[in-house]
């Protein structure tokens, strides 16, 4: 063993390598992304690693490998599980051969997501066993056990860390490489009775799964990571994940005599019912500290009702714990103190006279090509009746003032269809859908096919920055690179669009502002489905050009540059507009917006 300072996701990635994983697939999504990236980095060539086109593809590729006896890991964020749910629901009925761990990172808050959905609830719905680590060390240690459970019962299993586990660092004890397991799959063995799902097979396997999950529940009741700490109190706290870790810190740091009993649940499904009953023996009041759904709380209420046990269960359902958002350390502390009737130390300082603090909503970076694209469409459509359907990615930030160019955002790939629906109700609306290149390949192509087939009136804007920017620049089918370090043919967005029947496809550099505006005007007024691909690489991955500067002698202080495009590189210093050289990428959009030509490349002043 050796110790490394690792992010939770890195620990999980290293654990997968140590467990002899054979195939890893996934789709990027905060807070899950670094797991697959770590494996790709540590790969000695013996593991097949890919960013799949979306989560459904990732799960299906892994299913094929698991059928063939391989140990597989699939990574995604919680909303990605919605995309993968179709194969998943059936796969649970079919089962697997090689161990399969489906890593789904949940995001209480939510910090970087659309929903606060809970994979533990999904586990129960899909009948798939679920592990829920509470810190990076546990996330490392428990992964191999997840593979073992998967193989023992021939079922996929969920591995469900939350943001604070995924993205927290700690000194983690990891295996030395000579202790790594190597797993040799046998390859696919034909057996159509096993691998082809038919109603009869589903019926038979459904019964087996229900029986099996009772057995697993019993097994997990004695699982050594589900722990009870006993005290003399008649009160108890049940916690999971980071909420458990915070609770432990708080209980360890105080010297009250009557500390509560503490139960940690690391395997929410199948719920370790016997362990919960054992815990509640001698306890008359329980507080459940968990994030997202009141999952454990519901199970405790259920088991108490079924066994006719008189224990008061407090949590989200009873309003003792907030029903949404993160459990911060301060919230957990207040919940525990209230539950235990402890007095909160009140020597905190009153900071009420704080000066007004700056508001810092996330914005598109200085030099982001999306800003130029949005601005070109905005200018071209000024005064027209429009809908700008957005999508998931950095470009969702196009909703911020002053651009204000995202009217809707729902889920990956939805914008292209939403634009069609809006147009069906009010046909004279100019309907636009904005989609990034990675999202285009992940889930927007079918929406374009839908539009073409059903003769919609709309303009698709593909914001092609040659990367998956928001999650940290992962390659995708349009980039020509794979996670095995190989070069591959790039899929061309224009050819895909023409292939599915879009006849009008224009490629345009968004930084040629005047031309871009003209192209938008002309294209949008053509009939049917048409597309503009705005091509310019993400400002974060290209070397910045020489910065621009404001000639204060020419500047008339109209502040059009600030009010129109909202670039963080343009600031007001001592009452004057100026450009922050450290931020400016030299894109020059502001110089094309300035009405008096006061902005120019540094050293090239006219």
């Amino acid at each position, binding site marked *: 063993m050796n*110790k490394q*300072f690792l992010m939770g996701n890195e620990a999980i990635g290293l654990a997968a390598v140590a467990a002899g994983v054979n195939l890893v697939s996934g789709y990027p999504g*905060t*807070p899950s992304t670094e797991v697959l990236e770590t494996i790709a980095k540590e790969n000695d060539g013996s593991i097949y690693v890919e960013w799949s086109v979306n989560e459904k593809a990732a799960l299906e590729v892994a299913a094929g490998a698991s059928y063939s006896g391989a140990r597989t890991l699939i990574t995604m964020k919680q909303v990605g599980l919605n995309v993968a749910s179709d194969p998943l629901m059936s796969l649970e009925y079919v089962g697997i051969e090689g161990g399969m761990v489906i890593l789904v990172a949940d995001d209480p808050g939510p*910090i*970087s997501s659309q929903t606060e959905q809970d994979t533990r609830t999904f586990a129960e719905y899909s009948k798939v066993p679920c592990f829920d680590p509470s*810190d990076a060390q546990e996330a490392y240690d428990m992964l191999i056990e997840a593979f073992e459970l998967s193989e023992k019962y021939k079922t996929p299993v969920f591995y469900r860390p939350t943001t*604070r586990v995924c*993205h*927290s*660092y*700690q*000194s983690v004890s990891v295996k030395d490489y000579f202790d790594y397991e190597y797993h040799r799959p046998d390859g696919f063995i034909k057996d159509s009775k096993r691998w082809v799902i038919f109603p009869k097979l589903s019926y038979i396997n459904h019964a087996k799964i229900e029986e099996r999950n009772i057995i697993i529940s019993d097994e997990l009741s004695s699982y050594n990571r589900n722990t009870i700490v006993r005290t003399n109190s008649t009160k108890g706290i049940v916690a999971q994940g*980071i909420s*458990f*870790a*915070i609770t*432990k*810190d*708080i209980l*360890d740091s105080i010297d009250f005599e009557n500390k509560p009993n503490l139960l940690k649940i690391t395997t929410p499904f199948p719920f370790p019912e016997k362990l919960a009953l054992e815990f509640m023996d001698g306890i008359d009041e329980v507080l459940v500290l968990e994030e997202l759904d009141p999952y454990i709380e519901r199970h405790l209420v259920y088991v108490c009702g079924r066994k006719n046990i008189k224990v008061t269960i407090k949590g989200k359902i009873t309003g003792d714990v907030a029903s949404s958002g993160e459990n*911060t*350390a*301060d919230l957990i*502390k207040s919940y525990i103190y209230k539950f235990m009737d402890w007095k909160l130390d009140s*020597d*905190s*300082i009153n*900071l009420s006279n*704080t*000066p*007004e*603090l*700056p*508001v*810092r*909503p*996330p*914005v*598109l*970076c200085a030099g982001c090509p999306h800003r130029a694209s949005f601005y070109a469409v905005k200018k071209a459509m000024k005064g027209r009746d429009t809908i700008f359907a957005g999508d998931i990615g*950095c470009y969702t*930030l196009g909703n*911020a*003032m*002053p651009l204000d160019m995202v009217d809707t955002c729902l889920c990956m790939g939805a914008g292209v269809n939403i634009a069609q629906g809006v147009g069906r109700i009010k046909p004279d609306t100019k309907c636009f859908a904005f989609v990034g290149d990675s999202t285009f390949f992940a889930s927007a192509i079918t929406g374009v096919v839908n539009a073409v087939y059903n003769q919609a009136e709309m303009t698709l804007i593909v914001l092609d920055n040659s990367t998956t920017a*928001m*999650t940290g620049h992962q390659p995708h089918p349009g980039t020509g690179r794979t996670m095995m370090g190989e070069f591959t043919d790039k899929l061309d967005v224009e050819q895909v669009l023409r292939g599915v029947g879009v006849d009008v496809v224009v490629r345009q550099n968004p930084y040629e502002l005047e031309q871009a505006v003209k192209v938008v005007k002309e294209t949008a007024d053509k009939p049917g489905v048409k597309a503009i691909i705005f091509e310019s690489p993400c400002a974060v991955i290209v070397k910045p050009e020489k910065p621009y500067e404001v000639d204060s002698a020419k500047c008339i202080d109209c502040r059009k540059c*600030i*009010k129109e495009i*909202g*670039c*963080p590189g*343009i*600031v*007001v210093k001592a009452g004057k507009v100026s450009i922050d050289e*450290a931020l400016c990428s030299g894109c020059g959009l502001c110089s094309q917006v300035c009405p008096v030509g006061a902005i120019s490349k540094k050293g090239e002043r006219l």
Partner: protein
Amino acid sequence: MSTTNIILCGVGGQGTVLASKLTAAASMAKGLEVRSAETIGMAQRGGSVMSYLRIGDTASPLITKGSADLIIGFEPGETVRLLPYLKKGGVVITSNRAIMPVTAALLDSSYSGDSMVEYLKAQEGNLVGKLLTIDMDKALEELGSPKVMNMVLLGAAARGGFLGEVTIDDIKSALVKKVKPQLHELNFKALEYALI
């Protein structure tokens, strides 16, 4: 063993993460347990960012308000924002240089770093046990690089003895392992810059 709780805060892209990682590496090299947590994802894009760093035996990287021994602020407004996390009598080391949010330029807001620094000064002796404000424009100009703000702040913390058992020499040893050789001299100068 006692725990040292540190908060590093600033605006996305200012280099809080490297400072946090160096301190963690230095702690581990001494055999100390360490945990940290930070902002990743959408909020990084120009938003407020913070890292928690805890040296010592703990179960979680997160801390409650009123329990940070030290706040290292990369931006004065962000330092003020996170002041409620400071333990009474704790230490604040902050840059005085304000980063203007886009909203300030748009709304003509009067945000300035000076009012934040004044506010921090008013808290000295009350909540703040020790305040060190660093004139960052001057520091970076004298050091000749806009990129060593994190080392100026971290050096001040280490030399002041505010990183628990972690010393400036521990930080330097960790830095040598993480940073390219041609940048060592500049970073060492930055670590030694602040008067403490």
